């Protein structure tokens, strides 16, 4: 880097889905792009459940299915509301998901990110791994004009810098572009990848070929904390994880590793992973502050995309799709400015936000803007209701000498005892309000 006076059109910091989407779109259109990644290879630092939503990627690489490392096509979705020994659940399984093109796939991020990065390189971007951006460079007016990396004389210049450096986004917060994340706006998730023979996965989940099942769980497994767990089937492994808000985790005594162990031992989960071999244990933060916690998304010479901007829809566990979509929209904004011969000033980059507002990214985050607060202040959704539902099911499905009317009354009374009638009505209203 010593005599580097070369200037790039765009520098992209980070090679996760957000950075890759941006770098790919820009390089494909002929821009001179430099992408920097701190890991040994793209994906070596990244963690996801992981479900890939086809739509977001299709808009960037329409024929991705021909070469992307996809694990299984999701044909069945289960939702479990859990108590210590039981769960009440719903299942949606449809053969229609088998008909091409698939809509949701399970993936393994380390493999997927590597593949995505290969496409970025083929499109013409210069991708350098094992290089960490430590600061932003600015001119006298404060405009961002490049980045500084952890090498001697590591200054690199560009017209625009896209920060796709993920949830911690040290670069953005140290440069004062955004505040550091707060415990109440972020969840910590831990996860294991548990290997089983392909045939065992298929037999346990009633699958053939590349079919896959995903299970989302909530209830007693999070021990009263705001949190959810997941179990996803891969080809010859299972991804099992649990995540809780850090503000809640701070206020109790169970470690994340213990939470995951308890999940593994739950009588409904244990048989599904029995005999499996854990080959990796991972942890990662998820920005779950939602709409109200969003930072400034652009400024003089810079844009935030993906997790570094806080684009995660916690209710639907969508993040990678919002990352890819925001990366693409950032790139398209820069292409538009390029065509019109406009510089990357904050006033011009405002078009990025307009594009986001017109897309799934900000439309969905806006729709669910009150969910994080509702779950923080209304604990009954996390602890009382799962217990009540499971109690009701026990009551209902245990055949004894009591008649059905008596049972129904017992169920109703249980709900009323734990939450007054007004409380129940209020809860229904609050949940409705929060998702409007």
């Amino acid at each position, binding site marked *: 880097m010593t005599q580097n006076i070369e200037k790039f059109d765009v520098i992209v910091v980070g090679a996760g889905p957000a950075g890759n989407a941006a770098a790919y779109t820009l390089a494909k259109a002929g821009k001179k792009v430099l992408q920097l990644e*701190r890991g040994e290879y793209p994906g070596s630092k990244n963690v996801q459940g992981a479900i890939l939503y086809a739509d977001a990627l299709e808009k960037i690489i329409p024929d991705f299915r021909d070469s992307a490392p996809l694990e299984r096509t999701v044909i069945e979705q289960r939702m479990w509301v859990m108590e210590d020994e039981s769960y009440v659940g719903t299942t949606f399984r449809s053969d229609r998901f088998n008909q091409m093109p698939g809509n949701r796939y399970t993936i393994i*991020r380390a493999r997927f990110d590597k593949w995505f990065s290969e496409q970025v390189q083929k499109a013409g971007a210069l991708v350098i791994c094992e290089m960490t951006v430590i600061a932003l460079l600015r001119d006298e007016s404060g405009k961002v004009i490049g980045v500084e990396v952890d090498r001697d004389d590591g200054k690199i210049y560009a017209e625009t810098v896209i920060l796709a450096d993920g949830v*911690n986004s040290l670069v953005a917060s140290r440069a004062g572009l955004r505040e550091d*994340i707060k415990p109440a706006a972020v969840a910590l998730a831990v996860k294991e990848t548990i290997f089983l023979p392909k045939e065992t996965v298929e037999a346990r989940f009633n699958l053939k070929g590349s079919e896959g099942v995903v299970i989302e769980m909530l209830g007693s497994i999070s021990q009263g904390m705001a949190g959810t767990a997941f179990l996803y089937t891969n080809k010859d492994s299972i991804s099992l994880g649990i995540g809780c808000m*850090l503000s809640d985790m701070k206020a109790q005594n169970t470690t994340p*590793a213990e939470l995951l162990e308890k999940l593994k031992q739950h009588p409904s989960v244990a048989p599904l992973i029995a005999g499996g071999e854990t080959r990796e244990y991972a*942890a990662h*933060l998820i920005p779950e502050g939602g709409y109200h916690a969003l930072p400034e998304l652009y400024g003089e010479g810079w844009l935030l995309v993906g997790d570094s901007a806080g684009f995660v829809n916690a209710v639907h566990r969508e993040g990678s799709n919002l990352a890819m979509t925001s990366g693409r929209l950032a790139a398209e904004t820069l292409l538009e400015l390029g065509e019109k011969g406009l510089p990357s000033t904050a006033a011009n980059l405002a078009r990025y936000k307009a594009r986001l507002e017109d897309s799934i990214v900000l439309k969905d985050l806006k729709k669910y803007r009150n969910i994080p607060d509702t779950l923080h202040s209304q604990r009954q959704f996390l602890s009382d209701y799962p217990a009540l539902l499971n109690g009701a099911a026990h009551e209902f499905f245990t055949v004894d000498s009591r008649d059905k009317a008596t049972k129904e009354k017992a169920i109703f009374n249980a709900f009323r005892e734990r939450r007054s009638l007004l409380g129940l009505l209020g809860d229904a209203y609050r949940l409705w309000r929060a998702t409007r």
Partner: protein
Amino acid sequence: MMKVEEKLFQNRYRVDADRPHIRIKDESLCNNGCVSRACTVCCPAGCWSFEEGKIGLITDGCLECGTCRVVCDTHGNVDWNYPRAGFGILFKFG
């Protein structure tokens, strides 16, 4: 119960010997001033400990999640950086 050490044993790391990427700014604050010691509970890799009245931090098994930095919001006592480029956790699956 699988211990956290057993979990970490499955992972691949390139350890940057003697160059910890996370440092405690003021250990006496951890030992005497901090009530929650949230880092010792929340770290998913068990890197933080509090034994015999002393805070301990060994970053070899660190998963680079950033949790210890975020939960120490009251005191801001964690000097947190990424490991040198190429070092640290190398997720095989992620």
